[in-house]
């Protein structure tokens, strides 16, 4: 095989990495490059998306694999052993130089490095860690680093990954055990969860140490995340929401990413040919938001799904679906209801709710006031009481759904 140059390798190894949905550069500690020898800064808050691809996804990090060769044969994966994609492998220095060259030009926030498993889990993990070490120690790079860790690797190696990285992640891959058995026969749900538990322990320990000694080494300050593929196994939305809630609870995850399975070149026959609508993925993210920011329990979110099929409606968002199902909880009085009740009102975001709470300490709010705090008054109106508004007739209407649901429009191009 002819030698590949860096750009050709990048083409292969970025293509191989794009099925990982995460590209976040958020939630780390504040760092900058002043007084250092290198470049880079991070923030505690949200990260920066330096570009968006036509798939609507944020490009924040240089997201690549070290190599797309792999000893595993996971059916959903373009890099599986039996796939006949072109293979490539970066050297440590190639990744380091590429990261720095992109970073200097303000293309990226940092690096998200993953890899196919070559030789052994330990060997692969060691190569991944070496890239991060070189960036941090040889080049004093202070930008964002996200490393994928390998469940079977030596815990000591995984620990070293956390010392260099802002964020670490291990993918649970599929929402159900049965799905994992079918589609990733060499992976093991118990080992994956065991590795996540170990990572959580390290993060908690390092957090304790940092509180006691300022100089204690940082360990994955942006925490850990995971990803599930949606639509490749038989999991319903209810199953997925329940699984995600379990993962958040057990492992203190910062994020669970949902990736609608999409066709890959050279797919395995075991993989379903039909992909789920992208809207399904969107509804799952909205469900996730309800749990993380809107104080819904996972059971409550699951209740928004259809009782029999366990699927979220595609035409309306899960918060609206929940409200239409539990109409006795509405209308909510914007001038008196507690925060948690206001958070349930379709169309009111967390920021609008906080502003309502602040404003109503000083005066009673009318419907027009709410209108200035939210995007769609039409959506909010049936569920709210304001000083000049009572929606009695509206909420008793049987066709409430058609009144508040968005007008049917053409779905995304290939939705």
């Amino acid at each position, binding site marked *: 095989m002819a030698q590949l*140059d*860096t*750009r050709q390798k*990048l083409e292969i190894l*970025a*293509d191989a*990495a*794009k099925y990982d949905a995460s590209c976040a550069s958020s939630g780390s500690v504040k760092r900058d*490059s*002043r007084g250092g*020898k*290198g470049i*880079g800064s991070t923030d505690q808050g949200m990260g*920066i998306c330096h*570009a*968006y*691809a*036509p*798939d*609507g*996804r944020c490009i924040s990090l240089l997201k690549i694999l070290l190599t797309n060769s792999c000893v595993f044969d996971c059916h959903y994966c373009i890099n599986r052993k039996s796939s006949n994609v072109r293979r490539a492998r970066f050297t440590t*220095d190639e990744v*380091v130089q*590429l990261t*720095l*060259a*992109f970073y*200097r*030009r*303000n293309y990226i926030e940092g690096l998200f490095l993953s890899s196919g498993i070559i030789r052994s889990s330990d060997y692969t993990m060691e190569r991944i860690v070496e890239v991060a070490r070189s960036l941090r120690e*040889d080049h*004093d790079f202070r930008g964002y680093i996200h490393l994928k860790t390998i469940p079977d690797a030596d815990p000591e190696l995984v620990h070293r990954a956390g010392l260099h990285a802002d964020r670490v992640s291990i993918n649970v891959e599929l929402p159900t055990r*049965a799905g994992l058995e*079918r589609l990733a026969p060499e992976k093991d749900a118990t080992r994956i969860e065991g590795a996540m538990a170990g990572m959580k322990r390290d993060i908690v320990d390092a957090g304790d140490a940092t509180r006691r000694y300022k100089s204690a080494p940082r360990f994955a300050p942006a925490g850990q995340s995971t990803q599930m593929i949606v639509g490749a*196994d*038989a999991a319903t939305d209810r199953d997925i929401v329940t699984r995600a809630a379990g993962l958040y609870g057990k492992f203190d995850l910062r994020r669970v990413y949902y990736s609608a399975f*999409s*066709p890959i*070149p*050279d*797919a*395995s*026959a*075991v*993989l*379903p*040919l*039909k992909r789920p609508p992208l809207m399904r993925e969107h509804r799952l993210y909205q469900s996730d938001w309800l749990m993380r920011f809107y104080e819904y329990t996972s059971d409550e979110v699951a209740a928004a799904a*259809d*009782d*029999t*099929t366990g*699927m979220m409606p595609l035409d309306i968002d899960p918060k609206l679906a929940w409200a239409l199902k539990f109409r006795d909880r509405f209308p909510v009085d914007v001038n008196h209801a507690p925060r948690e009740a206001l958070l349930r009102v379709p169309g009111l975001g967390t920021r609008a709710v906080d502003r309502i709470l*602040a*404003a109503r300490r*000083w*005066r009673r709010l009318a419907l027009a006031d709410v209108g200035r*705090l939210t995007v769609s008054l039409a959506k909010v109106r049936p569920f709210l009481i304001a000083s000049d508004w009572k929606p009695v007739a509206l909420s008793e209407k049987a066709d409430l759904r058609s009144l508040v649901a968005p007008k049917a429009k053409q779905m995304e*191009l*290939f939705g």
Partner: protein
Amino acid sequence: MRIVTLEAEDDFDGWRDAVRGLVLDQVPPDQVVWQVGGDDPGELFAGQMPVVPADRGAFSVPRAFIDLARSATLHSERQRFALLHALLVRVLREPGLMEDQADPQVRKIEGLAKAVRRDIHKMRAFLRFREVPHPPAQPFQRCCASPEPSDAPPAPPPDRPQHNLGGRVGERAGTAQNSSGMRYVAWFEPEHHIVRANAGFFVDRFATMRWSILTPEISIHWDGKRLTQGPGASKADAPEGDPIEAVWKTYYASIFNPARVKVGAMLKEMPRKYWKNMPETALIPELIAGAQAREQVMVATARAKSGDNVEAAWAALRDEAMQCRRCDLYKHATQTVFGEGPVDADLVFVGEQPGDQEDLAGKPFVGPAGQMFDRALAEAGIDRARVYVSNAVKHFKFEQRGKRRIHSKPDAGEISACRWWIEQELALMKPRVTVALGATAARSLFGKVMTISRERGRPHDLPGGGEGWITVHPSFLLRLPDEEARREEFAKFVDDLKAAAKRMRD
């Protein structure tokens, strides 16, 4: 009428000092004209206000107002200083006003501040540096000569690294100082007066680099130690390209997934107005144009090549189905009854759901209806061993009456929950003809209610591809009370099976 002249468009401190004096003098906001140095040279200094001495008096203002004003003064809206003055007068009169985000005036200024914050964020995101040698072999721009003192010893001209894109991407051997002979220059066109407010971010991030940011209103330069500013520039002052851009475009094109085009989501966060200074955006039209074709090729390839391990795929699917909990029927049924037969069969029959005997045996069509079905197949000359038989719903649904389990019809939700499995089976096997036995199977396969009497006896296109036929369920024949009708319906059933099977030979 008072005229206040501020030093610059982003002169928040000047505005604050001036407005303090105006408030202390109780000048109404509509009696003040705000201008920025050079706005109107004719009337400059006409009614100029002296700077207010610090000891003239003071009043306190909520912190939230100061923060809001600091952002809003950067907006390009010309009335911003007057609007902020007017709001300040109200804030001093109405305690709590700053907490009332529903107030139209607060809302308006919050809107200005929000636009400024967004512009600041987008500048951090979409600004692109280009690398040039430092000092430049020839001045690459008129406005931005090196900000270093001219008596400094000239740095030796660094070798311009060969960006051989076929080879290494790195600029130099891997040391921390490998960009020391370089300078990074960006051209950016912000909407608001944010450049100086945003400079700290770039210094924090690129402290060890030499860089310049050129904008129409102002230029800023960082030499590794000091930040200096110069006049506005034009796009022609900025370097034209950078060989690394080709590598970056390769990345942009490769990280894009053509199977999930969402142009709206991209445009919402990256509006077209930013595109002209971002090299990668030149690729967007062709990426979108080629996406659908690329996805179709992927699906077609997958369809064409599956076959080598359909058997394994089917077995894996059945194993997964054994643990199905997509609806509640698994709770009372004995087991999942999956489809059965050769996976390369061209003819597939889909029934409603397993019955009492199928539930116990774990096999489809073994009870009374199955025996009726076998008789009909034999009559139609079809070998059951060569067809695949499955059900729309894979768990037995029943009502317990005494010791008997009475079949109960699956509802629309259960059919829909279970459709996942039959779709997977058919997608794997890709039979030429699929026959729906009864209304439940027809509903599952076609995704809508089909009237058997009207639709039987002719082929229909299945939503997932292939040809679908519709006929009655064999249990219907068992339920007919009189012998005559049963004989007649059985014959019609056999005719339907024959017609469907004939399509195999056509």
